[in-house]
């Protein structure tokens, strides 16, 4: 599903973010990518989303070589990948329903489809009763669940979650991880980027550890090593 072949990313000023990364994530896998701050985890996410291009190597997503992806092809790629960030990225003036619908509107989905999909994904995250509330009227954990719902709206094959529990307490963190597991059970490939030891250890799924831009460990049923 996701393949990195000898990928390096060097930012201007000879700042090496990633060095010779080789990865193979299979369809339906749940992979945690762990490492301390500044080790290159977010660069890896940016490479998957084609926000930055690799300095060296090859990246293949779902059989599509995105190494030299064209500017106008990026939206097509991003519609196939759901993304959840630490800082929620919800629009405060829109209701929870409108926030999810917005993702479908900008992708050109029909109004009928939007009316059908939005309640469905809000139901998956358990917020169908609060869909008319505004982000400020719900808790941080619920906001993050809306973001998960939004990322599911396009029915992506891959879900990338970059520190999704970073702003949440332990109870809400557990809820979000349970949600990601549920989504993974539906067959979606989940890439979880985190430095939350507890979360990773509880998951008992594949763990890839990055240190100073290099993969130092790749365990099938791993633990947080650092």
């Amino acid at each position, binding site marked *: 599903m996701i393949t990195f072949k000898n990928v390096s990313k060097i930012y201007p000023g000879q700042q090496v973010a990633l060095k010779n990364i080789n990865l193979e994530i299979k369809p339906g896998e749940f992979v945690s990518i762990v490492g301390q701050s500044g080790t290159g985890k977010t660069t890896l996410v940016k490479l998957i989303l084609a926000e930055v291009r690799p300095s060296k190597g090859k990246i293949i997503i779902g059989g599509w070589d995105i190494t030299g992806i064209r500017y106008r092809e*990026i*939206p097509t790629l*991003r519609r196939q990948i759901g*993304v959840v960030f630490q800082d929620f990225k919800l629009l405060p003036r829109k209701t929870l329903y409108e926030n999810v619908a*917005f*993702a479908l509107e*900008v992708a050109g989905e029909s*109004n009928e489809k939007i009316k059908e999909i939005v309640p469905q994904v809000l139901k998956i995250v358990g917020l169908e009763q609060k869909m008319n509330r505004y982000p400020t009227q719900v808790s941080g954990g619920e906001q993050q669940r809306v973001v998960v719902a*939004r990322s599911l709206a396009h029915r992506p094959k891959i879900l990338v979650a970059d520190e999704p529990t970073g702003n949440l307490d332990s109870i809400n963190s557990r809820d979000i991880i349970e949600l990601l597991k549920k989504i993974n059970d539906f067959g979606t490939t989940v890439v979880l980027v985190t430095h939350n030891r507890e979360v990773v250890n509880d998951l008992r799924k594949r763990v890839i550890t990055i240190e100073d831009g290099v993969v130092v460990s790749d365990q099938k049923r791993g633990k947080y090593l650092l």
Partner: protein
Amino acid sequence: MFFLSFSRVFRFSIQNFIRNIWLSIVTITIIVLTLFSVTSLVFVNAVMEEAIKIVESKVDVSVYFKPAVTPEQIFVVQTNLETLDYVRDVEYVSKSQALEKLRAQYNNSPLILESLKELNDNPLGDTLIIRTHNAEDYQKVIDVLNATPQYAVLIENKNFDDNQIVVERLQTIASQITSVGWGITVFFSIIAILVIVNTIRIAIYTHRSEISIMKLVGASNWFVRGPFIGEAILYALLGTVATIAIGYLIAHVSDPFVVGMLGQTDFSLIGYVNQNALKIFGIEFLGMVFVSVFSTSIALSRYLRV
């Protein structure tokens, strides 16, 4: 699909416009000032053209023949002049008609009328009054009369009316007004470009959350840029509508002065605007759409990364 996206882009454009309403008003004001300077220029040019036309219609060349010349000889000259394609008409005025005209002209000058009575014979000769299509062609008529010896012996005097000087002066003023008008228009256009660039820049800043989410969920580039372009077109449209309203108001208010200044004429500014509204305001709208979209493109290429 296209119309759906188009309607959404249009909706986002209106949202952008309303959320930055004060900036939108300032931008539209600058656009109105720019278009108003163009409209004023068009109006002034129309009035000047009409004034020139009126004065030009009063320009003619009068050819005074010697008293001994017979009307038949003059008719030969008249027929020959009428064959010239730049001559509009040639009017024959007999010596008795000329005397009547002179008496009518100096009706209030008893001294001149008394002097005319003193004369036993009519001292005036027959006259041909020649008018051309264009003011520049009068010199050609005079050249023809001078260059033809058989005409020269018949002619006592030629008079090229002084109105030509008035025409030339009006043309100079009109061209000076046009130059100054274009200068003002260019000045306002530059200000409009700067204001629009900054308005869109602020709009991009205000909508940075929406933009980042749009990019995140895979909105196409034109969908991200579209609302800003739509906003720019909206500025041009509302600016043009306001200019049309102001233009009609100015035409309505100034019409009595224009008609009073031009004297007896069929011309009216309102009539002129009605006749040319589509051309004037259509070109202004398209021109302003170009300026707005150009400015927005500058702002988007500099401040929006998609």
